[in-house]
């Protein structure tokens, strides 16, 4: 076992001499956290909506008043009055408007008669975020209209929905953090583990080890334990920095930190084993670098780190099931954002363990002790 310890000692000494490796592994995740987290998180505002009132009756005026109120307070949109619906539509098609709210002629008559009055929202749906916001706001507006009309009864006779949120509001920047912790672990495993390993191999450094009496097992153990240690270190650093940047509530509660450590360590072991399996018969450092970029995308996005898996098409969902990122992302979301115990993440931890065992066994089998 002396041999394995010698390798671990060497790797850790090298890391101490090259702290840039830690910085490099953290750079992309932190930039993504700050930029993406804030770029995607916000509420859509200041849209331009054209208003065409072809009715001018009292209910129509009420609709207009409510619209103005939203524009003045929530500032979701800004109203631009049009007399001619054709002009409004042209403005929409030319991109000067995000939507057109049309109150058709006869709306007031139908509204007072209770005969299916309708207003139309024509939205620019090339941007689903914008059109969804508009539709949502307009529905809210009509809901407000309905509750204020004198004809509405005091007590609701039809079921209405009351939304109760279990957790405090989770801004997108916090939503992103679990995925980025996993990404930072992956980056250290790839750069500080795989690419450096192959660079050393190409330079002939490995011959220095192979002529010593170190066993195959000790070599593999040494490289993988040191790789997992380095990756876990980076994961923990990002967990701390990221929790502060994203404002995760209760980030450093002792039990929570313990659970987070368990997930981070197990993820590090799993990803190191995966890296080792990929590199065990590879010789070209260039190939490794090329593969790295592709892998990064293939593993990160299907994992549900940026967008829920439930929104994926079925083929992407299948990919997500075998994606080794999916499980730590899920586990970290549970522990970091929802403060759950181990019970919620047993499947994730079991998968990571099984994944590590299988990939390590395959890598050990393929690893050659001779040149």
């Amino acid at each position, binding site marked *: 076992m*002396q041999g394995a310890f010698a390798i671990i000692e060497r790797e850790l*000494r090298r890391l101490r001499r090259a702290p840039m490796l830690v910085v490099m592994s953290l750079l992309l995740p932190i930039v993504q956290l700050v930029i993406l987290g804030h770029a995607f998180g916000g509420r859509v505002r200041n849209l331009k909506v054209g208003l065409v009132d072809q009715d001018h009756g009292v209910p129509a005026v009420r609709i207009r008043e409510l619209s103005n109120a939203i524009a003045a307070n929530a500032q979701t949109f800004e109203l631009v009055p049009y007399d001619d619906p054709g002009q409004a539509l042209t403005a929409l098609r030319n991109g000067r408007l995000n939507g057109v709210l049309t109150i058709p002629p006869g709306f007031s008559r139908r509204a007072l008669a209770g005969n299916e009055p309708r207003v139309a929202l024509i939205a620019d749906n090339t941007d689903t975020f914008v059109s969804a916001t508009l539709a949502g706001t307009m529905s809210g507006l009509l809901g407000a209209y309905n509750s204020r009309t004198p004809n509405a009864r005091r007590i609701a006779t039809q079921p209405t929905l009351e939304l109760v949120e279990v957790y405090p509001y989770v801004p997108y920047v916090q939503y992103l953090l679990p995925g980025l912790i996993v990404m930072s672990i992956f980056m250290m495993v790839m750069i500080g583990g795989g690419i450096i390993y192959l660079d050393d191999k190409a330079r002939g*450094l490995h011959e220095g080890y192979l*002529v*010593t009496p170190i066993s195959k097992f000790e070599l593999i153990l040494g490289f993988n334990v040191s790789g997992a240690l380095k990756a876990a270190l980076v994961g923990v650093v990002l967990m701390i920095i990221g929790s502060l940047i994203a404002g995760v509530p209760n980030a450093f509660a002792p039990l929570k930190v313990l659970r987070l450590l368990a997930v981070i360590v197990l993820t590090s072991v799993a990803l190191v084993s995966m890296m080792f399996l990929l590199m065990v018969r590879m*010789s070209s450092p260039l190939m490794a670098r090329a593969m790295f970029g592709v892998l990064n995308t293939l593993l990160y996005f299907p994992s549900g780190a940026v967008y829920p898996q439930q929104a994926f098409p079925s083929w992407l969902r299948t990919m997500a099931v075998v994606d080794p990122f999916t499980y730590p992302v899920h586990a970290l979301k549970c522990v970091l954002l929802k403060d759950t115990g181990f019970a919620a993440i047993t499947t994730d931890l079991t998968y990571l363990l099984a994944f590590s065992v299988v990939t390590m066994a395959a890598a050990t089998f393929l690893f050659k002790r*001779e040149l």
Partner: protein
Amino acid sequence: MKAAVDVRGLTKRFGDFTAVNEISFSVKEGEIFGLLGPNGAGKSTLIRMLTTLMVPTAGAATVGGADIVRDSDTVRRTIGVIPQALTSDPELSVEENLIIFARLYGVPRERRKHLITELLEAVQLTEWRDKPVKNLSGGMRRRVEIARGLVHEPRIFFLDEPTTGLDPVSRTAVWEMLHRIKTARDLTVIVTTHYMDEADKLCDRIAIVDHGKLVALDSPLNLKASIPGRNFIEASFGGEPDDWRARLQRLPAVDSVSGEGNVVRIASNNGPLTTTALIAAAAESDVAVRSLAVHSTTLDDVFVHFTGRDLRDALQEPSPADQRLLIRR
């Protein structure tokens, strides 16, 4: 005396390329044994097999009495190896590198400290012990490698091209050091090189390897004596008659006459005698002597004799190793 290294019919094939072709020889304990040959001759492959880095395709060898395939761990414990590539970590200090390798060999802690200090003195790097290896010059890095190779006190020492890439001063320094260490520790040294002057001066015996085969094996002196002609005269002429070559052949003590381009090479058993006669003959026949050089047989001459070409020219051939790399990858 027991052989330190015993090689019997060792062969290595990569696909249909044979890098080492049934080589057999023995290395005596305590000698400095050289493997001389151009790049791609198979020297490095041979060393790699003997140091258990590669498994032979056929044949067998024992190093320090242990079989290189069946008993590879014992071999690894017995030998020190300086491969062609630099295997120290550039980011770590000299001392850290030695510590790591001492641990890899399982050298006990108490012995480790003492050994490292001793070795650093032997390679004259004591005041550089804390400096990162990447800050050292090429010659100094080689010395680190030498210290690293000896950290577990091996009896047999393999060096693969230890002075390639060094300037002449560093080369001399490294060789003096190796000699001192070898004598002090009673080592057996096997070294590969393509520098003839090194091999000539320093090795007790030399094996000449070309295209994977062993073409000659003896002490430098005997090798040089074994080829006909103790001297070589290289000369170029102007205005020579058609039968000039034949007339040169008839000069006293001449063994053979060959020529590349307009440089004539005369192998002679008595350089001064032949030279005097040559000049006289040229004067008599009104032939201008454009250049004239006389030298004693060198290993290059030995190489030419056994392989039919110059070691210098052989170095310019595309290395089969490069072709092999393309095939394998």
